[in-house]
């Protein structure tokens, strides 16, 4: 397996470092060749500086095409949603969660909230936050609403999605999110509570429903996501 492809963040960082390096090799050879104060040398430095800085931006290659993926899901208000189709034209910040999760998924959700709070009103335009449950048997629209409400989340541009189990399973397979049954707890009343071993992920999807970047949901850097959103918008 190609580990760089598996880890786009690492790949982008590598490119981000490599591109300015190449710029500077060229710059150095130019300076050495040029010897002394050439009138255009200041312009050159400015130019190279510009290239170096901008090379860090727009490094959001298309990772996967989500435009052909479409499933009928239901949102936290019990409305039917065509996912991803209904969100075409929005820059999507998607997180994958299950609400019985007490540690990782709240961190992922909180990171999405921090992104939402960091974006200015202007930057927020056309941005849609979506949390998708991979535990639909537990995560009914009502449960998802409670999960959001207890955290005082701003749902004005944030939707929680769930659906039938086969549909959700198929969707997760398509987007590459893995959720395997792990440990469980049996309550005194005999109810079994399942905990999933799952992909810890926030995804950034552009307005044409192209996946542009995956982040490790619980450890995601807020500013990195904000910068990436702004680079796409």
């Amino acid at each position, binding site marked *: 397996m190609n580990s760089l492809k*598996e880890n786009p963040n690492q790949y982008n*960082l590598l490119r*981000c*470092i490599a591109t*300015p390096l190449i710029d*500077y090799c060229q*710059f*150095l050879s130019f*300076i*050495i060749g040029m*010897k*002394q*104060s050439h009138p255009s040398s200041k312009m050159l*430095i400015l130019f*190279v*500086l510009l290239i*170096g*800085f901008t090379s*860090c931006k727009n490094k959001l290659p298309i990772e996967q095409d989500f435009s052909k993926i479409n499933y009928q899901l239901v949102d936290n208000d019990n409305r039917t949603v065509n996912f991803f189709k209904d969100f075409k034209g929005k820059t999507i910040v998607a997180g994958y969660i299950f*609400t*019985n*999760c*007490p*540690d*990782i998924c*709240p*961190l992922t959700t*909180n990171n999405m*909230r*921090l992104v939402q*709070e960091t974006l200015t009103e202007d930057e927020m335009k056309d941005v849609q936050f979506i949390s998708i449950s991979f535990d639909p048997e537990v995560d009914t629209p009502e*449960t998802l609403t*409670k*999960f959001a*409400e*207890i*955290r*005082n989340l701003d749902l004005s541009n944030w939707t929680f999605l769930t659906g039938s189990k086969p549909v959700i399973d198929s969707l997760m397979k398509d987007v590459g999110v*893995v959720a395997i049954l*792990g*440990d469980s*707890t049996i*309550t*005194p009343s005999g109810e079994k*509570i399942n*905990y*999933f*071993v*799952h*992909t*810890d*992920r926030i995804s950034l999807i552009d307005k044409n429903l192209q996946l542009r970047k*995956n982040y*490790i949901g*619980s450890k995601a*850097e*807020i*500013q*990195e996501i904000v*910068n990436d959103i702004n680079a796409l918008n």
Partner: protein
Amino acid sequence: MKTRAAIVLVTLLTLIFFSCNSKTDMPETNETADQTFEQGNIKITDTWIRPGAAGMNTAFFFNVTNSSDMPDTLVSAESGIAEIVEIHETYEKGDDMMGMRSVEEVVIPANSTFEFKPMHHHVMLIKVINDLKIDDEATVNLKFKNTGDIKITAKVIDMKTMKH
């Protein structure tokens, strides 16, 4: 002239490198209640609970300082705020996968502090009885093998304040 070019080069390279690596390392400081719960050689500090809706799960976090020359062991926890209380750990499974499992007990080594913190260990509150909203307070009883019971209170903290 070559030296100057080299200085400019190094400076610019450094600048670019940091601009590419603009990840700000946000410390996980939190505004936990400034309460300390002490019994024998065990001290509990930095207690806090994540918000959780009635019928759902959440987690309790804290630090344990063992000032004894002997290790002690957290064997269980009890609380009236949830149907079931367990000691859990979060673990990495590779390929960006995360999981959580219950653990029998947690040994607190001699003369050390053990942190029950996000992405590591927590006391799992399963099916909380009532909504645990921000600023609510709850009581949890921690049972140690040597020290015995330590009753603590913890505040429900908004995670918003976790990262600044």
